[in-house]
């Protein structure tokens, strides 16, 4: 989850192309790509996923429509390596959704939210 490092990242301007691969660089890439709907290469993901994983939230209707544990849909495996889309839902609360394949991860990260906002200006 977010911590001091994230706060530093959020308050320090950084070039969008800075490397090497790290959580921070992934986030910069995300922000630089298209802000709230930035598509990322899956190879950039692990660090981010490891630090921000939270309970996946499923749409009410589709959770019921699946109705059974197996109904995560075969399609999930089809595009698990596909793009990632980041959606800053609420800048004040730092509520962010990350979409990958057929999953959705909700996190609260003020630093990341601030970074995304700054990168979008």
């Amino acid at each position, binding site marked *: 989850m977010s911590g001091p490092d994230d706060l530093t990242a959020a308050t320090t301007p950084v070039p969008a192309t800075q490397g090497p691969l790290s959580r921070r660089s992934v986030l910069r890439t995300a922000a630089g790509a*298209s802000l709230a*709907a930035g*598509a990322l290469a899956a190879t950039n993901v692990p660090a981010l996923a490891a630090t921000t994983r939270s309970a*996946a939230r*499923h*749409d*009410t*209707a*589709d*959770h*019921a*429509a*699946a*109705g*059974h*544990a*197996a*109904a995560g*849909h*075969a*399609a999930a495996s089809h*595009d698990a390596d*596909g*793009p*990632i*889309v980041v*959606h800053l839902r609420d800048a004040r609360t730092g509520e962010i*959704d990350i*979409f*990958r*394949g*057929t*999953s*959705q991860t909700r996190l609260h990260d003020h630093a990341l939210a601030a970074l995304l906002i700054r990168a979008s200006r």
Partner: protein
Amino acid sequence: MSSHREAPEISKDPVADSTDLYAFVSPDKPDSVTLIANYIPLEEPAGGPNFYEFGGDLLYNIHIDNNGDGEPDITYQFHFETVLTDSDSFLYNTGPITSLTDKTWNSKQMYSVERVDRRGVHVLGRRLLCPPCNIGPLSTPNYESALGRPAVHSLSGGIKVFAGQRAEQFYVDLGSIFDLANLRPLQSANVFAHALGLGNMPGVNATNHLNVHSIAIQVPISDLKAKGRPTIGVWTSASRRAVSVAGSDGEDGVASGPWRQVSRLGNPLFNEVIVPLGKKDYWNHQPPVHDKQFASYVAHPELASLLPVIYPAIPPGSAPFANLAALVKSGKPRADLEAILLTGIPPGIVKGFTNFTGPTQADMLRLNTSIPPTPTSSPKYNVLGLVAGDPAGFPNGRRIADDVVTIELRAIAGLTYPLVNPSYQVDAVVNALTDGLTGASVTNGPLGQFPYMGIPYDGYHNPS
């Protein structure tokens, strides 16, 4: 319409718009059930050069609840994909299409079908070909024998499946009904039509000579029902990915995240006629198990209060809907409609019949699979279904030719209220309520075998 363009949001997304749902014991194979979910409303047969097709970015579902909890126990999922033979041609076909594999058919659509249940995801078929749209005698000669029938795929376990264009079978006088609830056969009594001096006249089938896209699957009854529970609840839904990013500069767009339901359909006309405009989009996003929140609209349908106002006198001087008006005024909930649409009819209400699934209120098409199909040659066969003494018809599932407009119109007008209140006197006019159409109003009527939906109209002979 049954569910064509029935809500603001889905009216702008035709490929995801479920139009009709049918569920019946197969008349020619009574150990099986046929489920048909139609999508893409009001297809103009001449709609080229990009003829209609299913959405490759959608997940189409047919759900079955077999234990009455309003949740799906079995889901059949369909994913579609379009493949171009020659992406440098603008043409849908470069010559007559004489078979499903003909190279002259440039834009082929195929699909996979999976069964999802508590044991997992089971692939039933992959790369199954749809038929092309019915273009005309030059492009699609011998349509049904060469293209339609070969697109019926037999899968293991006695399952048949078909997905593709078919003739619209739902008949309704849209032009009149949406003109202030006018019924042409009774319009001399419509307060607005009467003011214009319009006399009664036959109904006009507004959906005739139009096509839809059907997803049809025939499954052994034993694959669907739970032990000791012959009634199943059925609904269809279409879902899109949670987010999408439009492509640019030649790059593909992005779709990601969980599937989100954007359309659903159980009983015909539920969202169309029962749910208020401000909640129709919301309803489309909800699962049936949450339908208790809409039960008040079933218990107090707006149309029941409008009929006595719109038809104040048939003939002039009478009060044709006096009893309905009194019922509405009483504020008593329409427990008959709640049973028909939300729980099924409990035993003991209609002699020898039940399709009750339990107390959970959910809009599902409920089919008691133990009731055999009524042959169309039988005197018992009636497109008005159960209310006319034919228990194999709507609301026991729904057959293709069932006159659901008349059935629901009469039910809302009070025809079925005596089921829960035997002392209620149905207004005499209710049995005359109709938009004036029957199954004969459909030019390309149903087939006698799977997929039952009629042969699609071609664009050459039906250009407008």
